[in-house]
């Protein structure tokens, strides 16, 4: 079964890398967006399992995003992604999927 992962980050280069990395594994389906409005639309339209918060999202935006996304999907797991499509990605996702939120 595929895990659908939504990445939200402001840097287009990192977003492109994240899109490639998340869709390189058959067990993951990655959707990568740069704006909060896009993220909310995607979350309404698709069954998202995990949200990765990327770079450039300030504290206020993060608070609003977390509230709105969990209103749409209360079971949603939301974590911070560090490193920008780096060697940390696999561990972050595996850890998040193994934990109860």
């Amino acid at each position: 079964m595929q895990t659908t992962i939504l990445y939200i980050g402001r840097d287009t280069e990192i977003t492109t890398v994240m899109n490639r990395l998340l869709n390189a594994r058959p067990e993951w389906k990655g959707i990568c967006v740069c704006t909060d409005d896009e993220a909310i639309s995607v979350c309404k339209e698709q069954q998202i399992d995990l949200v990765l918060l990327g770079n450039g999202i300030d504290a206020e935006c993060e608070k609003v995003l977390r509230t709105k996304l969990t209103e749409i999907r209360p079971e949603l797991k939301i974590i911070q992604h560090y490193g920008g499509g780096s060697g940390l990605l696999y561990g972050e996702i595996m850890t998040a999927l193994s934990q109860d939120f």
Partner: protein
Amino acid sequence: MSQFILHKENTRGHANHGWLNAHHSFSFANYYNPERMHFGVLRVLNDDLIDGGMGFGSHPHDNMEIITIPLAGAIAHKDSMGNSAVIKNGEIQVMSAGTGVSHSEFNANADEQLNLLQIWLFPNKKNVTPRYDQQTLDVEARHNNFQQILSPNADDAGVWIHQDAWFSLGKFDAGFETEYKIKKAGNGVYAFVINGEVTINGQVLSKRDGLGVWDTDSISFKANTADAEVLLMDVPMELN
């Protein structure tokens, strides 16, 4: 009562890509060990051997404090901030990735292997303006002394980062003993043995072993061999 975790050299993650032979003290890339995710804010400790002329093409990073310490050879660095530099053994490089930066890292020599430690710490503040720095260290100053090479303060010894962390390097004569006092309450120390054999808080450590110690304000140190060389990473144990 102090607590500790011991990471023996041969328990590290390992990935041999031909041109890159990497050992990971903590989970990295395809090496995933839930018991080895981080030590406080210390998230990555990679011990990389890179063949002559080879390296990592341009790739992005964000929100991470990235420290590179060449142990042998030299690394050619270029980044999207316009920095272009060669960093060699005896120097240290730091990059705050913050809102996002791209860089490439290559072995600067075609006929010599490069060995480097790449260390990543979680920052104490997200989305900072990216920055780069490198410094030449006084290698003589670390003889029988833990020489500070990194701190949170721009006006202190070594490079600085966005985290309440202090790194020290020391090279010791056999039998030399000392105590290291932790710089900030709540921090722990992760000791990584670059060369030789040492004893820290009663634990005998060999080349490339790592020992994390916390819930204490100091650690005891003894060099057991003449070539003992150790990196101490004094880091917050709580993630920000």
